[in-house]
């Protein structure tokens, strides 16, 4: 099979694709047997990655959306289970068979130019995601200075102090990202067990403020004072289905969207995809429930509902430290990833300059509290935008060979753009927009029909493309390694 770099040069599209390839150069080969990792590594990785600064925001937003206690607990139980199954049955089996990261895998299917566009969109999403984490950290830094906190309805900066604090936090985070990504990544791993316990401790210490002093009191307080079923004004009321689909698709870009091919390609067995359960049930269950309890206390005491103040209610200064560390350590790798993708459009810039520019964009985004106060919508949008390419990868790997079509057709034909993949991406997003605009389907529910639309379009158009080119031979397996 031709090396992608060579293909790129032949295509005469060197400027974009060659830049992108150069950045990912070190990662182009399938992972070798000696570099495979055991289940413990994946448990630690997933548990750490999903106990992040944004957990301090998502739990409170469920409360703001007036979800009922039973709906929340059951919705999270089932939604997180579906997320785990998506990692285990959709993403991991492809990851362990190809052993390629998402970049090189998608390149073979979509072609280098389409991949370039996808990468830039991905980078912009990363900037906004990192921005929300900087906002979260800023709410902790601002407390000692009596900074007015953004409220649940704030979309724009609400004070000069907020602007100054975000600029300072964004500046420091960017500077640290420039100085040493690896050390912060390690620090993040060290912090994650402690962070999880801070969430648990905050919840237990705050429960007496809601009148809960024994486990027997919890259910009544949960229904009457925390997840009451009554949304705050201007928010849509969340049902069991909202919670289920949000929990399932909060990381849609990672499992159904296949971004975690990059991680799971190191797994010895596809079953390691189930390790994601540790991230889902610790971060997206325990931490969301805990931060929901904290915001209920804040609302009862007419206090601020931003992450910093609610963590302070539960754990004092240690809570502030947790918000700051959680925001910072998760913003850092996100800025790094965005920088990698952005480097393709600024090939002559040194790494630090790209990181600085990305940090600047991220910090400006962080100025707007809308990013955290509308985080549920943003997270859903982020996943939805990137999901169709995951459906394309799935269909290319499993469905095309069964139809007698060739997988990795763009690479084989040396195409710079796979138009079935491009159409699957754009038409799916257009169709989802139509479902939203005409039928009023909320964004949380668009991922599932979107996946089927993307898969159908890609398979149908691939059939047309390959049949019209006379390519009806049985496809070769793209998978050299089957564990």
């Amino acid at each position, binding site marked *: 099979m031709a090396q992608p770099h060579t293909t790129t040069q032949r295509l005469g599209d060197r400027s974009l694709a060659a830049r992108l390839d150069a950045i990912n150069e070190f990662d182009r080969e399938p992972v070798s047997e000696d570099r495979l990792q055991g289940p413990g590594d994946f448990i630690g990785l997933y548990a750490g990655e999903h106990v992040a600064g944004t957990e301090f925001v998502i739990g409170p937003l469920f409360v703001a959306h007036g979800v009922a206690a039973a709906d929340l607990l059951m919705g999270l139980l089932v939604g997180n289970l579906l997320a785990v199954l998506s990692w285990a049955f959709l993403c991991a089996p492809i990851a362990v068979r190809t052993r390629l990261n998402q970049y090189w895998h998608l390149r073979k299917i979509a072609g280098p130019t389409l991949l370039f566009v996808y990468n830039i969109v991905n980078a912009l999403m990363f900037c906004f995601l990192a921005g929300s984490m900087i906002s979260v950290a800023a709410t902790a830094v601002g407390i000692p200075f009596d900074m007015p906190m953004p409220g649940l309805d704030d979309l724009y900066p609400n004070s000069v102090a907020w602007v100054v604090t975000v600029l300072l936090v964004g500046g420091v985070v960017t500077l640290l990202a420039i100085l040493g990504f690896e050390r912060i990544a390690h620090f993040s791993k060290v912090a994650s067990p402690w962070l999880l*316990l801070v969430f648990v*401790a905050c919840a*237990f*210490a705050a429960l*007496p403020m809601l009148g809960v002093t024994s486990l027997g009191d919890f259910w009544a307080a949960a229904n009457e004072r925390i997840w009451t079923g009554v949304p705050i004004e201007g928010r849509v009321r969340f049902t069991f289905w909202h919670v289920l689909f949000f929990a399932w698709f909060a990381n849609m870009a990672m499992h159904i969207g296949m971004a975690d091919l990059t991680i799971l390609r190191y797994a010895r067995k596809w079953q390691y995809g189930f390790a994601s359960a540790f991230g889902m049930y610790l971060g997206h269950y325990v931490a969301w429930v805990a931060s929901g309890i904290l915001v209920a206390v804040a609302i009862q005491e007419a206090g601020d509902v931003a992450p910093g103040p609610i963590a302070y209610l539960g754990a*004092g200064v*240690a809570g502030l430290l947790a918000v700051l560390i959680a925001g910072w350590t998760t913003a850092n790798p996100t800025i790094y990833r965005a920088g990698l993708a952005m480097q393709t459009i600024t090939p002559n810039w040194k790494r630090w300059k790209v990181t600085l520019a990305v940090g600047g964009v991220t910090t400006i985004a962080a100025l707007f509290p809308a990013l955290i106060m509308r985080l549920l919508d943003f997270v859903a949008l982020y996943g939805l935008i990137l999901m169709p390419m995951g459906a394309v990868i799935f269909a290319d790997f499993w469905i095309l060979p069964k139809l007698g079509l060739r997988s990795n057709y763009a690479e084989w034909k040396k195409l710079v753009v796979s138009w079935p993949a491009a159409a699957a991406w754009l038409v799916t997003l257009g169709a989802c927009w139509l479902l939203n605009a005409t039928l009023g389907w909320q964004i949380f529910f668009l991922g599932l029909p979107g996946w089927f639309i993307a898969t159908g379009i890609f398979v149908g158009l691939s059939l047309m493309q390959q049949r019209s080119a006379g390519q009806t031979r049985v496809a070769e397996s793209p998978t050299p390694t089957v564990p």
Partner: protein
Amino acid sequence: MKVLWKVLSIAGLALTVVPSLLVFAGSLPWRTHATLMLIGAAAWFATAPLWMQSSRAKRKSA
């Protein structure tokens, strides 16, 4: 030495979570819990990187 760091790390985690359970049970004031959590954080971050780092280095050299 590594055993000592690990013991101190675990003590740090215990100081992070156990006081909150005592607050919940009504046998510890909230303020004491907040102070103990801070001490626990200091203990964890001062000691955990030492043995976590060395485990990592050990794996590399293996």
